[in-house]
C-alpha cells in the first residue's frame, strides 16, 4: 500500500468499495504524501488534516456505500470554492480569515458523493494569473521542476494532483485556468460547458466565463468527478436545466472511426514551441491511426480573443470584487477617518497588484463614455467568436490544438503582464464561446522534459463524447509518468 498515492481515483474508488483500502488509509496516504511533498511543491493554502481524518473515520464506521461514487476519496479544492467552516482565501490577503458558513454546490455534491475534502489549493489571487505566482501567500512549484511554474490560476490544484497529494482536485477555468495547469503539470483537466456545473459558491472572477471542472490523473477519473458535480442547481440561474448524461458509458471505445477532428490553422501556425507542436502532432497522428479523420479549418477571430476576453473578464471582475470593501467580512484597514478612506485603504492593503490592475482596467472599460467602445464592442465580438466556433464545429466533431504555445515556463519568466496574458491565447476563446474543452497529457517535451497537453474542444454539453475520445487516445498513447518527487 506504500504506493497508494500513485493510483488513479478510479482504482482507489474500487479498492475502497471492496474494503481493500479504508477511507482512513486513503486519507492517511494523502496526508503523508502532503507532508512529504509540500515543502517542495507548496500546493495547499489549508490542509484539512483533522477534519479529513475525522470524516474518514465516520465513513469507515458506516461502511462503503455503492451509491456514493466517491466514497472515501480524498479531494482537494481550489481555494475560491466556499467550504462551510473552512477558511476560503481566494489566494488573497483580503480574505485571509474568511470562513464561509455555506458550501459551494459543487463542494456539497462532492461531500454527498462520499468524497473527503483534504485541502484548499493555492491559486493566483482571485484566479487572476496563469502561473500561481500571483498568490498572496506563496508561489506553487511545478512538481516536475521546482524552478518552473505549475500554470494557473488553478496551479495549486494541478500541482497537488500531479504530486499525488490527492486523487482529484476541483479547479475553475475562466480563460484557461484548469487547462493550462493541467497541461503544465501533465494531468487531465476538464472545463465543462458554461452552465453545466453550478457556480454557486465559486467566488467569482468573470461570472459569464467561470466554470468549475475536475483535474485528475486520468480521463476516467475526470468523468467520475464531473458526473458528481454536473447538473442543474436552482441556486444558480445560469446553470442549465438539462439532464446529465452518463460520462462513463462511452469511455471504453477502442477506435475513433467516424470522428472528425478539426485543426484550426490559428492554433497550429507559427509561435508554438517545436517540442509542443511535435508532441501534439504525434497525438493527432495517433488519433488518425485510431480511425479519426482530420480537417484543416480556421478560427479566424482568434487574434481578437485576448482583447475581448480581458475587457469582459476585467469588467465583470471590477464589479464582482466590489463586495470586498472591509464592511462585512475580510480585511478592514484600521484608523481611517472617513468612509472613502476606509474603502481605499482596505482594498489597497488587501488586494495584490494584478488584482488592482484588473479592477482599475475593468472600471475603465465600463465607465461612461467608454462603455460602447470597450465593453459593448467586446460583447459583440464575443457573439461573433461563438459563431466562428459553431461554424467550425459544423465541419468537425472536435477541435484540437495545443493548450499553450510552451511547456511550463520558469518562475519569474513572465514578469510583463502582457506576456503572461498571451499564455492564454489558445484557451480563452473557448470560455468566451461557453464551450467545453479539456487538456489531455500527450507526453513530455523533448527540450524541456516538461509535460505537454493537447486541447480538445467540443460542442456544448457534449462532454461525454469528448471524454470518450480522450479516453481512447489516452489508452493508446504512452502512459504519462508521474513526476519524480
Amino acid at each position, binding site marked *: 500500500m506504500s504506493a497508494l498515492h500513485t493510483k488513479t481515483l478510479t482504482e482507489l474508488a474500487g479498492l475502497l468499495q471492496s474494503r481493500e483500502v479504508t477511507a482512513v488509509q486513503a486519507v492517511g496516504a494523502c496526508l503523508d504524501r502532503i507532508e512529504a511533498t509540500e515543502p517542495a511543491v507548496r500546493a495547499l493554502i489549508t490542509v484539512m488534516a483533522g477534519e479529513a481524518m475525522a470524516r474518514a473515520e465516520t465513513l469507515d464506521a458506516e461502511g462503503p456505500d455503492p451509491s456514493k461514487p466517491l466514497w472515501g476519496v480524498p479531494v482537494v479544492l481550489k481555494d475560491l470554492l466556499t467550504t462551510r467552516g473552512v477558511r476560503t482565501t481566494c489566494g488573497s490577503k483580503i480574505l485571509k480569515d474568511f470562513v464561509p458558513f*455555506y458550501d459551494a454546490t459543487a463542494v456539497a455534491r462532492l461531500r454527498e458523493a462520499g468524497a473527503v475534502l483534504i485541502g484548499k489549493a493555492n491559486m493566483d489571487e482571485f484566479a487572476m494569473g496563469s502561473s500561481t505566482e500571483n498568490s498572496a501567500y506563496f508561489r506553487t512549484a511545478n512538481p516536475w521542476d521546482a524552478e518552473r511554474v505549475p500554470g494557473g490560476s488553478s496551479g495549486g490544484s494541478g500541482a497537488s494532483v500531479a504530486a499525488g497529494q490527492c486523487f482529484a482536485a476541483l479547479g475553475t477555468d475562466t480563460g484557461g485556468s484548469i487547462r493550462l495547469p493541467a497541461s503544465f503539470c501533465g494531468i487531465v483537466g476538464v472545463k465543462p460547458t458554461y452552465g453545466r456545473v453550478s457556480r454557486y459558491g465559486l467566488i467569482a472572477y468573470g461570472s459569464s466565463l467561470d466554470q468549475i471542472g475536475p483535474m485528475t490523473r486520468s480521463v476516467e477519473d475526470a468523468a467520475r468527478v464531473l458526473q458528481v458535480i454536473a447538473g442543474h442547481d436552482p441556486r444558480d440561474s*445560469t446553470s442549465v436545466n438539462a439532464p446529465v448524461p452518463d460520462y462513463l458509458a462511452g469511455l471504453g471505445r477502442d477506435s475513433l472511426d467516424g470522428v472528425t477532428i478539426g485543426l484550426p490553422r490559428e492554433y497550429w501556425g507559427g509561435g508554438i514551441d517545436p517540442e509542443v507542436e511535435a508532441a501534439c502532432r504525434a497525438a493527432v497522428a495517433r488519433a488518425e491511426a485510431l480511425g479519426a479523420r482530420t480537417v484543416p479549418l480556421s478560427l479566424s477571430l482568434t487574434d481578437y480573443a485576448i482583447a475581448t476576453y480581458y475587457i469582459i473578464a476585467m*469588467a465583470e471582475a471590477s464589479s464582482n470584487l*466590489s463586495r470586498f470593501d472591509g464592511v*462585512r467580512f475580510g480585511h478592514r484597514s484600521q484608523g481611517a477617518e472617513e468612509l472613502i478612506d476606509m474603502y481605499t485603504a482596505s482594498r489597497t492593503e488587501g488586494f495584490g497588484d494584478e488584482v488592482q490592475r484588473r479592477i482599475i482596467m475593468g*472600471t475603465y472599460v465600463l465607465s461612461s463614455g467608454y462603455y460602447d467602445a470597450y465593453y459593448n464592442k467586446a460583447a459583440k465580438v464575443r457573439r461573433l467568436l461563438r459563431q466562428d466556433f459553431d461554424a467550425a464545429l459544423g465541419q468537425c466533431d472536435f477541435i484540437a490544438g495545443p493548450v499553450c504555445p510552451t511547456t511550463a515556463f520558469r518562475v519569474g519568466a513572465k514578469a510583463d503582464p502582457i506576456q503572461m496574458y498571451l499564455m492564454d491565447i489558445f484557451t480563452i476563446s473557448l470560455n468566451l464561446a461557453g464551450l467545453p474543452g479539456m487538456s489531455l497529457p500527450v507526453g513530455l517535451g523533448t527540450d524541456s522534459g516538461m509535460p505537454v497537453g493537447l486541447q480538445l474542444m467540443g460542442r456544448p454539453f457534449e462532454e461525454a463524447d469528448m471524454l470518450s475520445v480522450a479516453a481512447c487516445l489516452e489508452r493508446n498513447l504512452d502512459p504519462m509518468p508521474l513526476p519524480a518527487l
Partner: protein
Amino acid sequence: MSRYETVIGLEVHAHLKTRTKIFCACSTTFGSEPNENVCAVCSGMPGVLPVLNAMVPEYAAKMGLATGCEVNLKSVFARKNYFYPDLPKGYQISQFELPICEHGSVAIEVDGQRKVIGLTRIHMEEDAGKNIHSAAENASFVDLNRAGVPLIEIVSEPDMRSAEEAVAYLKELRSILLYLGICDGNMEEGSFRCDANVSIRPVGQEALGTRAELKNLNSFKHVQKAIEYEVARQIDLIEDGEDVVQETRLYNADKGTTHSMRGKEEAHDYRYFPDPDLVPLVLDPAWVEQWRAELPELPAAKRTRFMADYGLADYDAVLLTAELAVADYFEAAAKAYSGQARKIANWVVGDLLPSLGETGIAAGDCLLTPARLAGLLTLVDDGTISVKIGKDSFRDLCASGDDPAEYVRARGLAQVSDTGELEAMVDRVISENPAEVEAYRGGKTKLMSFFMGQVMRLSKGQANPGVVTKLIQQKLS
C-alpha cells in the same frame, strides 16, 4: 401669473408586497430585529448568486399593464455599481437598458382639469439596507433586513407643472398600486417613496432648465411643500442673476426647506452593465395576457362608474375610490341600503373616513360594517332616530360593533313621535313661557325655534321635530 413655468418629473420607488425578497428566500417583514431577515445572498457573501423571485416580474408587469405600458417580453437585469455600507455587493441589481415596462401614462385631475402624465418606464430592482449611526457609541451599524426587498421604480416624463399636479399623480399611482395589491403604499415606512426632479423655465421657453433632485419626501404634504419651496428658491436664484446647480437636495420637514447634499452624489458613474449572474428575463406572452385579464377595476374606472351608477359628485368619487377597501365598503353599504347611495357617500366621507383616520383602522376592519351603516341610515330615514342621534352614535358603533337597532333600543334613543306625549311637552312649554307666546302671536314667528329648542330639551333630543313643529303651530295659531 408667474413668468416662470415649473417642470416636474417624479421617480417613485414602490416596495412590492412579496413574502420573500427579490433574489433570496428571506422574509420582507418590516420592523424585525436588525439583520434578522438576512442570508448569504442578501448580505452579499462571496460566491453566492441571485435567483429571481417569480412574483416580482408579475407584479411589475401588472403595474405596467395598469398604466398602459408596453410590457417588454425580454428584459435585462443590470448592475448599478457604487460603494456604500448599506449596499452589500457594492452594486445594486436593477434594470437599465431593457426595463420590464415602458411608455405608459396616468391621468390626473387638478381643479377640474384632466391631464395625462407620461410614464417613461417601470423597472425592477433590489432595495439597499440601512445605515444606523449611533452618536452614543460613536459607531455606525448596518441593518440589511431591507437589502433585497423588491422594488419597482416608476419614472415619469417631466410632464407635471405644479406641486398640486405632482401630488395628484403620486396619489393616483399609490391608488393603482393599492388596487393591484402589490404595494402597501406606506410612505412613512418607506414602502412608497418619491424623488422629485424640479426645474423652472421662462414661460414659452422650450428647453428645460437645470433641475434639482429632491429627496426625503415622506408624505404628500412634504412633496407639496418641498416643490413649492424649491420652485421659489430657483426663481429667486434666477431673478438674482444666479444659476441653478444640478444637484441632489434634501427636504427638511421641520424647516420646510431644501438643502444641498453637496456634489458627492453627482460624481457617481454607476458603470451599468448586464448582470452576468442573471439570464435575460423572458416572459411568455400568455402570462402577460393572463395578468392583463387578472387586473381589477382600476381607480379611474371605478370613479367614473361611481359617478354614473350612484350619482356621486366628483369630489366624493375621488375620496371614495382612493383606497380599494373604502370603495368596497361604500359599494357594499350602498347595496345594503334601500335609499339613495349619495346619502351613504355623505356618511362615508363625512363620518367614516375621519373616524378611520383617527383610529388607524382599515375600512375593511371597521366594526360598523357596511350592512350596519345601511341599518343606521334606515333608522334615520324611518324616523326612529334623528340625524343628530345617528351622527352622535357613529363613533360608538364603530368602536363597539353593536347592531344599530339594538344600540338605539338599549339606550332608549328612539325618537318620540307619540303625539300625546309630545302634546304634553308642548303644553308645558307654552304655559311656562307666556311672554314668548305673546310675542309669537304678535308676529315674531322666528320664536318657533325657541319653542322647538325647549321641547327638545324636555325630550332629551328625542322628539320628532316634524311632529313638534306641527303641534306648536296648531296650539299657537
